[in-house]
Each structure stands twice: as C-alpha cells, then as structure tokens.
C-alpha cells in the first residue's frame, strides 16, 4: 500500500508542479500575452468547437443505425467503426495536407473571379475545415461507442410509449432517445476534446497555432520555459473544466442506466432510403478516418520504398521499440499492483488518490512533459530515459489501470478474497488466482499501452533522449521536412500495429 501511495504521489507531483510553476511566468510572458496568446486560445477554442460539432455529426447517426436496426453488413460495420482510432491525428494530417494543395487551382480561380478577400476566406475555410473534419473523423469512435451502448441499453418501452403517444420516429429520437443518451454523448465528447487539446502535429502542419503549438514555440522559439509552463497550466485548467462538465452530466447517467435490466429487443430491418442513410452515416467516418488514410499511406510507402529504407539506417528505431515495449510492460504491472492493492484496502482516500493519479490520461502530453521536466530537470534528468519513462507512466497509467480494474471486478469477483481467507498471502493470491484469471486482459492492455506509446508525439518530442526516435517522432520529423511520402512508411507501421492492438482488445473484450 505504501508503494501504491508513493506511486500515486509520483504521478501527481509533476501535475501539481505545473500549477505551482504557473505563478512565476517568464521574462517573455508580457510579450506572449500581448502578441500571440489570444491567437493560441482562439485557435484552440475554435478547433474544440468545430471538431466537437463534426464528430457528433459523424458518430451520432451511425451509432443510432448500428444499435437500433438490422441490415446487411451490420456486424462487420460494428467492428470496423473502431478502426479510425488506429490513425493518430497527425498521421491523418500528413495524408490530408495534399487536399489544400490539390485545391490550389480552384483557389486561384476564386481569386481571379471573386477577388482577394473571397480567396482568403475560401483558403481559410478549406484549410481549417479539412483540419476539423479529419480530427473529427479519427476521434469519432470516442463518441460512437458510448452512444451505441447507450442506445442499445435504452428501454424499448420508453420509445414505444412515445410511439403510442403519436410521436413520429424523428420526434421519438430527439425527444426520448437522444436525451437519454446525453451522458454517454458528453463522456465521449469530453474524450474528443482532450484529444484535440493534446494534438500537436495536425494543427502544426495546417498552420493553426493552438495552445499546444504555443507551448512548443514559447519554450523553443522564445527560449522561455517559465512562460511555457504558464501556458501549460492554463491548458490544464481547461481540461479540468472539461472533466468537471463531464462529471456533472455523468452523475445523472447512473440513475438512468440503473433502471434498465430488460433484454434488448429485436431490431427492425432497414430498407430503401433508410438503408442508404445507414451506409452513408457509417461510411463517412470510416472513409475519412480510416480507409482513405491507410490506402494513401500504403500507396506512398510503395512508391517511396527507397527513402523509407534509408531512414532505417543510422536511426535507432529498434531501441525505441524495445523501450516502448518495456515501458508498456512496466506501466501495466504498476497499474495492476496499484489496483490490486486498492482491492485489498477498500479505503475511500486511497480510491480518491488513485483517481487523481489517473488524471494523466486527460492532461495533454505537452503538459505532462512540462511537469516531468519541472520535476526532473533540476536533477539533470531532462531528455533521458527516466524522464520519458515517467512521462509515459503518467500519461498512460489510466489507459492500463481502468481496463485492469474492470477485468478484476468482472472476472475475479470475490475469488481472490476467498483465496486470502484460505490463508494465502496477498502476493500469492495475486500470482496464483488474480493474475491467471485476467491474463488475457493483461496482455491486451500491454499491447494497448505499447501502441499508445508508439503513437505519442508531443511528450516523446519533449522528453526523449537526443538520438531516440519513435515511429511518431520519425513520421513527424520527416513530414515537417516536407518529405511526406518518406513519412508514410513509419506511419503505416504504426497504424498497422494499432489495428492489431484494437483487434486483440476487441477479442479479449468479447470473450
């Protein structure tokens, strides 16, 4: 237990130090506040809003059709809707950067016909619209899945009652189904917003400097780490506000779900125009968020094979695989021990502490990195394996912890307790009973964390030792040098590994 408490504290301290560090502000703060701060905040808020709208528009209809109706290909589509999660935002950005470029002739036409102002507007709309749409597509599963579950467990009788009262199907949806699913929608939306704030590569590539981009620029462009810390602290406040809003709605969700225990009813078949809409609603996020990016990446990987093999030489990507793997294993083990010890000691404050320690998943990678640097920098550990390991632990502790916690609850029941009552030590119970029971989940979680580490960009960029390249930093580096096609292969490798992890996760979940 002492170990768990100190682990939690280790995870909390860097985040607290960001807050404490906020007070100082650097010598350039005045300058940042007067010149670029408004732009950073404005871009972030605007991006949050537009991605939210688009992602709900993509996730809501598809979740409705896939949960309430029957149509050919439904099972396949249900599984596939997860796939956009395998594409990190910056990888999608690398692919879709070609879009504004391909549209240049059109923009030139607009400029010659309608003048410069119209052109500027079209250019901004096209660029920022593409950015919002691509982020919305790859993040839409975060909303789609909670919504789908919510629609599935809703009591049929409620809708039937509405029907009996003479409501049209559309009205049933908007007055009954949607309000009931609102907590699920909010939970998904909160995750989407956190991912948008976390994103560094995509807004950087599309020339939309957000707060995350601002932290990088302030730190490295202006060389003012104290002001960068203050920006990071501001971002964290924003995240806490989002979390608070989500908690607020979730409080009511329990009330709704607790009522439902009836078996889901038979879904009616869909035909004609309804079928068309169903396919369209699933097709749009899947095409934008997965199939187009992956096909383009495959195409580019093939035509730029020479360049792709060139980066392999000299870079030490193999080491980063090893380190990502070891970190994933270590993080999962620590999460297992922490949650196991919580099972042993069902104390309120311990639970609270663990919850706070798991906040790292919500905090943007760049803020986590700043926190770790504040803690380890004075000890001379910045840009070391220790720093990057702690960064990953902080950010992905919850990614490992939550599914393990759920698995222990689901699979073990009180079996481990029984084992202890029969005289086994806690450690023996863990190794003999609990661990063998949740082995499948454990492996899946290690894989999930491993892939998350490979995909992580801002944190890896700030904390990595100098020669350390991950697939993410390599893709980003090549793409920001304009070698877009050469960046395709490492990106593709990362996406394929992520798909593999998702498939395994899905398997484990369904068994």
């Amino acid at each position, binding site marked *: 237990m002492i170990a768990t408490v100190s682990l939690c504290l280790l995870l909390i301290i860097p985040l607290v130090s960001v807050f404490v560090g906020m007070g100082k502000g650097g010598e350039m703060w005045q300058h940042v506040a007067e010149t670029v701060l408004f732009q950073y905040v404005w871009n972030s808020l605007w991006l949050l809003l537009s991605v939210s709208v688009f992602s709900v528009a993509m996730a809501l209809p598809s979740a409705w059709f896939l949960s309430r109706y029957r149509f050919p290909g439904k099972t396949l589509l249900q599984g596939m809707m997860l796939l956009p999660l395998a594409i990190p935002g910056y990888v999608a950005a690398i692919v879709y950067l070609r879009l504004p470029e391909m549209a240049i002739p059109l923009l030139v036409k607009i400029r010659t016909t309608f003048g410069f102002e119209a052109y500027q507007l079209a250019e901004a709309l096209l660029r920022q619209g593409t950015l919002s749409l691509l982020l919305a597509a790859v993040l839409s599963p975060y909303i789609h899945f909670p919504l789908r579950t919510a629609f599935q467990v809703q009591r049929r009788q409620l809708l039937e009652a509405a029907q009996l009262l003479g409501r049209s199907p559309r009205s049933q949806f908007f007055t009954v189904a949607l309000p009931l699913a609102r907590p699920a929608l909010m939970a998904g939306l909160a995750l989407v917003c956190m991912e948008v704030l976390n994103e560094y590569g995509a807004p950087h590539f599309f*020339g939309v400097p957000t707060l995350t981009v601002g932290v990088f620029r302030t730190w490295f462009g202006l060389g003012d780490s104290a002001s960068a810390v203050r920006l990071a602290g501001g971002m964290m406040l924003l995240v806490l506000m989002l979390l608070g809003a989500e908690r607020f709605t979730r409080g009511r969700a329990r009330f709704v779900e607790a009522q439902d225990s009836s078996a889901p009813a038979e879904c009616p078949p869909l035909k004609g125009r309804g079928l068309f809409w169903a396919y369209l609603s699933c097709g749009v996020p899947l095409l934008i968020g997965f199939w187009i990016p992956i096909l383009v990446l495959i195409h580019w990987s093939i035509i730029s094979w020479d360049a792709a093999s060139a980066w392999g030489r000299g870079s030490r990507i193999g080491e980063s695989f090893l380190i990502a793997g070891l970190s994933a294993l270590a993080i999962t083990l620590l999460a297992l021990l922490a949650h196991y010890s919580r099972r042993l000691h069902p104390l309120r404050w311990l639970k609270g502490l663990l919850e706070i320690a798991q906040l790292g998943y919500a905090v943007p990678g760049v803020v986590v990195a700043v926190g770790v640097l504040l803690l380890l920098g004075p000890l001379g550990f910045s840009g070391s394996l220790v720093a990057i390991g702690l960064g990953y632990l902080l950010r992905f502790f919850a990614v490992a912890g939550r599914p393990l916690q759920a698995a222990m609850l689901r699979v073990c029941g009180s079996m481990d307790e029984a084992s202890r009552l029969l005289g086994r030590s806690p450690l023996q119970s863990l190794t003999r009973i609990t661990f063998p029971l949740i082995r499948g989940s454990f492996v899946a979680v290690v894989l999930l964390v491993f892939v998350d580490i490979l995909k992580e960009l801002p944190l890896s960029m700030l904390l*990595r030792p100098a*020669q350390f390249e991950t697939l993410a930093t390599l893709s980003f580096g090549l793409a920001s040098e304009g070698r877009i096609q050469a960046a395709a292969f490492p990106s593709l490798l990362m996406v394929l590994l992520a798909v593999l992890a998702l498939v395994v996760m899905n398997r484990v979940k369904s068994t």
Partner: protein
Amino acid sequence: MYLAGVMHIKHLLSLISVSCVSLLGAKEPLLVYSHRHYESDTALFDQFTKETGIPVEVVKAKANALIERLKAEGDKTKADIFITADAGRLGLAADMGLLEAVKSPVLEQRIPAQYRDPKGFWYGFTLRARVLVVSPERVQESSLDYEDLVKPEWKGRVLSRSSSNIYSQSLMASMIAAHGAEDARAWAEGLKNNFARPPQGNDRDQIRAVAAGLADVAVVNTYYVGLLHDSPEKRDTDAVSKVKIIFPNQDNRGSHVNVSGGGVVKGSPQKEDAIKLLEFLASEEAQKSFPNGSREFPVVPGTPLPELQASWGDFKSDDLPLSKLGELNAEAVKLMNEAGWQ
C-alpha cells in the same frame, strides 16, 4: 517488429564491433551531435574514417534537443563535435559555454572570416542563401530586394514559412542588423500584410505553391530548389521547372546567407581528432562533395560548383558576420510576434 528486430541486432553488432576495435588498440570513435540529416554527410564521415582510421559515430536530432543534451551532460559529455544548420544556434551554444574555442591555421586560411566565429568557437562548412523564388510568367522584375516585398503591388502575392522557423528568424535578424529594430518590425508587418496565405508548411511547400499559381514570390533557402529538382516525385520536378530564383539585394548589401557548421564540444575527450574532422570538412574533397547531396554552396571560395548550382548564377552575399545572427535571434522572434507574422 521484424524490421525493428533486425535493426536492433544491427545496432548491437555495431556496438560489438566498435568495442572489439578498441580492444585491439584502435581509435575510439569520434562522437558527432548533428542536426544535419543528409545521406551524403554519412558518406563523408566514412571517407574521413578511411583516410585517418578514426571512426565516427553520429547522433542526429534537432539542434535545440542537442543543446539541451549537451547542457545536461556537462563535463561528462562524450560528444566531440556539435553540428547545426544555422549560425544562430551555434552562437547560442557558444554563449552557453558548450563549445571550446579552437585555433587551426588550416580552418582560418580556408574559411572566410564572416563564416566562422572570430574566437574559433565554430566554423561554417556549407552556405545557404535565403532567396526569392518567383514565377517568371507573373513576375517581370529581374532584380528584387527583400525590402520590395512589402510594397503595395505585392499585396496577396508573397509566401513565407512560419516565424517559428529558424531560417525566418535569421533573415529577420539580418534585417535588424541592416535597418535597426523599428524598421525591421515595420518590414515584417508589411510582409505579413502581403502574404497570400498564413504561413504553413516548409520551404518546399512554398515553392510548390508558387508553381501552382497561389502566389508569385516565396522566400526560401536555395537548396530547397535543388532538393525539389532532385526529387523522385514528378510534381516536385514539375514545380521547379515553373519557377526562377532571384538573389535579392544584389545592388546593395547582398542576399542573406547562413551556414551549416560545427564546433568542438567543451570537454571533448578527443580534441585533436575533432579538429582533424573539422579540417577534413573544410578540405577540397569535402567541399566539392557537400553540394552534390545537399544542394548547398561550398563555403571555401574557388570550389567548383555542381552544374545545378552553377546554373543559378553568381551572387553577392551579405557580409554580415554570422555571429550576429545568434546575438539578434531573441529580438528577431519578438519583433516577428509583434508584427503578427505567425
């Protein structure tokens, strides 16, 4: 995974072979921290090893990350040489006390004074000019200055990459050196007002956009034109065929140039060998070889140019001592932010 495994084994093998060599009493490898990422650099280091028997190991990363690393390692660093693609960052490293001033008659004789640090903290090896790439169809002027781009007739016709990039910052630093802070800020603001779109992408993207007709002039480094020319992608070679280079400010101070260069790391375990490597990089052989792969210019006067660079014509370069770029960097960033250059 397979690939990663193979590479890991390769790395282990190289480690083993290096340690075997040292057991046999051969030279310890020179450790180079480099921001440059050209295949041709690797070939040059191999050539150096062949001629001197001194093996070279390279750690590649962004300049800022390398500076942070050198700071963290302090006296215990194993690094011998620090190489970046910008004089500003070299100056910064020197100011932080990360580099050691070295004297070498060979280097002093071969490298012109403005392209090296007066005290010998760093030496430039290759030159890149920040030039104007124009569409010959839409731009009749045969000579232009940086200062011309802020005139009203260029409204909506100019492209540049972001002010967060070091090349933009160094150009701005040279504007401050030439005109003073106030005028330089006014210039940056005027330039921003004439942008055809908010800054995005790198120099290659700006060249492609001019070729596609989005704008008529872009501020870019010369070697990007060369790299697009060498690109395996047809859209790149097509883009290059539609643009022309104008070296700006030929009738006054000359075009802004910067160097890629290096210095000996303070506390280097093998200072003598490190100097040898620097001298090798300034040798006729290396100077002739650099421009082929990276499309930069050699820094040593009189070195014959590859056909492509020769076709761009002779140009006059700004003789501002490049150590100034480092000194003025922070001010340049501030002024560009104030001007609203994203």
